[in-house]
């Protein structure tokens, strides 16, 4: 004989109702957020995946942001290099006119002087409080001003002239300097000041070491340039020679040598700067490629996370509707069952 106890009959719906109400709470939350109500319970051990995806997503976004900073630095560098190149170009044209005998010495000299000043000011550009051409030593001006009072670079240059010839360029005796002597002076005395120990001692505070940055999860690259690049040194040397010696009492022959050496050097400087420009361009491209790549990854990760944690909003809404309906039915049934009693008929 199957029997049903009154307690079981009245309690029959209670447990189900409790479960359905708990489910309704979950379904409502899922329907409103579009994500599973409890990621841990829904994914179990796979929660680690979702955590890792979210973390990598955050990191990628962080790198995309920091790449923005790097790009700003690189494009400022690129602009500065363009300006340097223009300054070199104008020095070159005044040297060219000087070599053809057109320009007055003083004009050529002042052209050298202004190139030197431009060079100093461009190289000392800073972005976000960091000097662009300082290598890693970004809190110190990379180039010392040659024309400033007490400039050690100027003192060294002047001293080397006196040491070589025994008199200053302004001395009338300077008119006797031969082309060969001038050539030897430039090669043996001036060049070490720019390509030897003298550069780091008197001219530059920049380091050869560059800033290395992470531009993608697994990609590092140097993202700065240094004032110690050969092209820049050559430009500085040519401009220094022109600005220091052109308006002196030096002989025409020596000046011709000086002009031709400087012209060659500026030409080399231009190609050196061009090289740095193209290197910088390559890095710019790498950074922007990396950023694009990461943005694609970000989209992909977002989709993965959605796959893992997302719920179909239509399905969630249907579930809410179904559960509400079921609970209502269950209430109605409970009420009916309570009515169902023999006692009503016993009078």
């Amino acid at each position, binding site marked *: 004989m199957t*029997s049903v106890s009154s307690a079981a009959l009245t*309690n029959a719906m209670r447990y189900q109702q409790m479960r359905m109400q708990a489910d309704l709470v979950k379904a409502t939350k899922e329907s409103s957020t579009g994500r599973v109500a409890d*990621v841990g319970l829904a994914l179990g051990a796979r929660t680690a995946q979702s*955590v890792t995806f979210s*973390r990598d997503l955050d990191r990628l976004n*962080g790198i995309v942001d920091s790449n923005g900073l790097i790009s700003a630095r690189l494009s400022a560098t690129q602009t500065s290099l363009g300006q340097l190149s223009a300054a070199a170009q104008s020095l070159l044209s005044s040297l060219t006119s000087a070599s053809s005998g057109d320009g007055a010495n003083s004009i050529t000299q002042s052209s050298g002087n202004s190139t030197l000043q431009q060079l100093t000011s461009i190289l000392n550009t800073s972005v976000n409080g*960091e000097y662009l051409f300082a290598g890693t030593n*970004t809190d110190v001006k990379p180039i010392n001003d040659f024309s400033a009072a007490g400039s050690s670079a100027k003192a060294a240059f002047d001293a080397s002239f006196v040491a070589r010839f025994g008199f200053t360029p302004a001395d009338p005796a300077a008119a006797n300097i031969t082309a060969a002597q001038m050539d030897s002076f430039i090669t043996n005395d001036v060049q070490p000041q720019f390509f030897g120990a003298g550069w780091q001692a008197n001219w530059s505070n920049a380091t050869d*070491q560059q800033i290395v940055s992470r531009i993608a999860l697994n990609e590092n690259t140097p993202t700065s340039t240094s004032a110690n690049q050969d092209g820049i040194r050559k430009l500085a040397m040519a401009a220094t020679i022109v600005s220091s010696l052109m308006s002196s009492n030096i002989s025409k022959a020596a000046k011709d040598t000086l002009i031709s050496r400087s012209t060659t050097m500026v030409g080399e400087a231009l190609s050196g700067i061009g090289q740095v420009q193209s290197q910088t361009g390559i890095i710019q491209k790498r950074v922007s490629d990396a950023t694009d790549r990461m943005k694609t990854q970000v989209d992909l990760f977002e989709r993965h996370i959605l796959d893992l944690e997302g719920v179909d909003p239509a399905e969630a809404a249907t579930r809410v509707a179904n559960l509400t309906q079921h609970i209502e039915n269950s209430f109605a049934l409970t009420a009916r069952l309570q009515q169902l009693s023999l006692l009503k008929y016993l009078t």
Partner: protein
Amino acid sequence: MSLSTALNIAQSALLATSRQTAVVSRNVADADNPNYSRRIAVVTSTAPGARSVDIQRATDDLLFRQNLSALSAYSGQNALYSGMDRLGLSVNGVDNASSPSTAIANLQKALQLYATSPSNQNIGSTVIDAAKQVVRSLNDGSKAIQDFRTQTDGEIGTAVNDLNSLLGQFQDANRAVISGTRSGTDVSDALDQRDALLKKISDYIPVSTFTRGDNDMVVNTADGTTLFETIPRSVTFTPSSGYAAGAAGNAVYIDNVPISAGSGGNTTASGKLAGMLQLRDGVAATMQSQLDETARGLITAFAETAPSMPNATGLFTWPGAPGVPPSGALINGLASTISVNAAMDPSAGGSPTVLRDGGANGAAYVANTSGGASYSTLLVAYGDKLDKPMSFDPAAGISVTSSVSDYAANSIGWFQGVRQQASTAADAKEALAQRTADALSNATGVNVDQEMSLMLDLEHTYQASARMMKTVDDMLAALLSAVG
């Protein structure tokens, strides 16, 4: 046969009916009591016309046992699941917001930004702040776990006291059953009470029972330890006042035999006690080990290196500094003692530039030898090291080789994996407990409608018997008046 015999029979019928009615009314009164078993009044005819009423109690041993074991299983599973819910929330926070994994991710982000602008002191301080968050997450998590263990330990103590008092009550109920059975009185109420106590006991510990002569019951635990035999066996437990990482908790002894803790997400624990033991010494202790291993991984990843010098602690340090913890071996309690190196902490008089340049352990460890303010190589290297695989102690229960940031994420995965199993199993076991309780109630409970229809029958019997008496009375009266 005589009229007086008929009168006697009717009288006996009235008596039997009234006793049956008493049983019906008792049944109806206790219809809603889940621990009440339906009484059945069995009428037997002895001598011709004489009737006696025996009261029997509806029982179903098989269903009762099933219900007890389902109750134990659900109780153990539920203790595990609800405990894990609390534990996960207090260690990892809502949506893992305060988990070490999240804190490490933020540290990585801050490090990335600092590596991009190494000369910016403010960003450097952000890295130190993020590192402090990591440390706080580990310290707080570690404390939360040990607090949780202490709390659970206290709950186990309370449960043991409850169990002892239940066993005491069980002794009284059992005695009442035995003496009632011996003197031949109705022991149904005492049996009800004893069964109800058994249900309560099985909430704490799984039981198996057998009944000896005189209805004397012996209660064993499911694995055979005697829990009650004539007198209750003592359940003993010494609570600890506090817990440290790696410290094992005290066992619960029944009759000097320790209760074994449950294992697994769909736990083998049956009964609240085994479930709580599993929480205290299994889940919570493993979670602590994972935090300790995460802490060790961080200290190792940020260690300062220098040629021909031993590795020394960098951004993260511990009481054993300047040495770095040995590779691949768990150090209990490391997560509670890890801290940010004061040499790099601006609020402790240090500077984040030490992180950028190296040298927290002396000039030999300085990596930025030229002193440039935008030296980023070391910062980038730290970021790489966070992603570099290292070996972890297998005792902590998850991936032996992974990067420290993945390890922290896997720790969450491990926990949620166990929690998911526990949740699914709790649902299933709850349904089984509910189902067996229903079945038991159907088999032994009261159906009011049935009792009411029985009542109608009894009413008719009573009316018929009364009418019979009236008729006999009339007949006797007619006889007497004829005689008179």
